[in-house]
């Protein structure tokens, strides 16, 4: 039974690349398949970009989990941005308040085994993603 956590800042586009790389290393480290690695890295990339573009930057805790009965990676993204007033609407495909495709949140959820989102208008958003073996 073991977990190891790495916390990274998300303040620039280069940080988003770094998040992808660390998620990849952790996912490979716990033995996720190539497809599962690709899914969680892609989901992480979507949410990291949201944290930067909509949350005004923040951080992510990337955790590799090896404890019965679960093995995988869990990511917790936090920002202190404006928050999401209507989460249901934000989760819907093709909804965007920015210039993106509006696939980020809903798409990321489909790529994970666990997904949760908490947001408070005016104080920020926390999103948890996990992919288990």
């Amino acid at each position: 039974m073991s977990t190891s956590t790495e916390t990274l800042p998300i303040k620039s586009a280069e940080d988003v690349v770094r998040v992808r790389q660390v998620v990849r290393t952790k996912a490979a480290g716990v033995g996720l398949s190539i497809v599962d690695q690709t899914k969680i890295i892609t989901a992480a990339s979507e949410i990291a970009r949201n944290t930067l573009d909509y949350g005004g930057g923040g951080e992510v805790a990337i955790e590799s989990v090896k404890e019965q009965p679960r093995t995988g990676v869990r990511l917790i993204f936090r920002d202190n941005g404006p928050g999401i007033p209507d989460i249901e609407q934000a989760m819907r495909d093709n909804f965007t308040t920015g210039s993106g495709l509006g696939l980020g949140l809903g798409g990321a959820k489909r790529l994970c085994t666990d997904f949760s989102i908490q947001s408070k208008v005016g104080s920020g958003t926390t999103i948890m993603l996990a992919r288990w073996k």
Partner: protein
Amino acid sequence: MDRIPILKFGDCLLVTIQVDMHDQLAMALQDDLTARLVKERSRGVLIDISALEIVDSFMGRILNNIASMAKILDAVTVVVGMRPAVAITLVELGLELPGVRTALNVERGMDLIRSTVDAETASDVDLD
């Protein structure tokens, strides 16, 4: 800022993406490719993504944009070398690449560009 190199090969432009691109680098590639297409009057753009471990919605949008812009500039875009795991992930993400043609590898991609350009040239002649 770093740039992704664009190679001219006959009437085509070749791009091999070898690094994990941050968003501004991907935007710069889109701009550079469009400028080169006009400058070289190229008929085809081949983008090799075999080194890419992921294609997220942003990168997908860039590929779509490149294909749309190339089409307006009378060039065909073919993306080659997509990894199977990337293809599976794109479908689940919900990302479609409507304007982007794909081929398994560079050789097939070049064949696809050749045959598409030749077919267009032939139909242009027919119209005359």
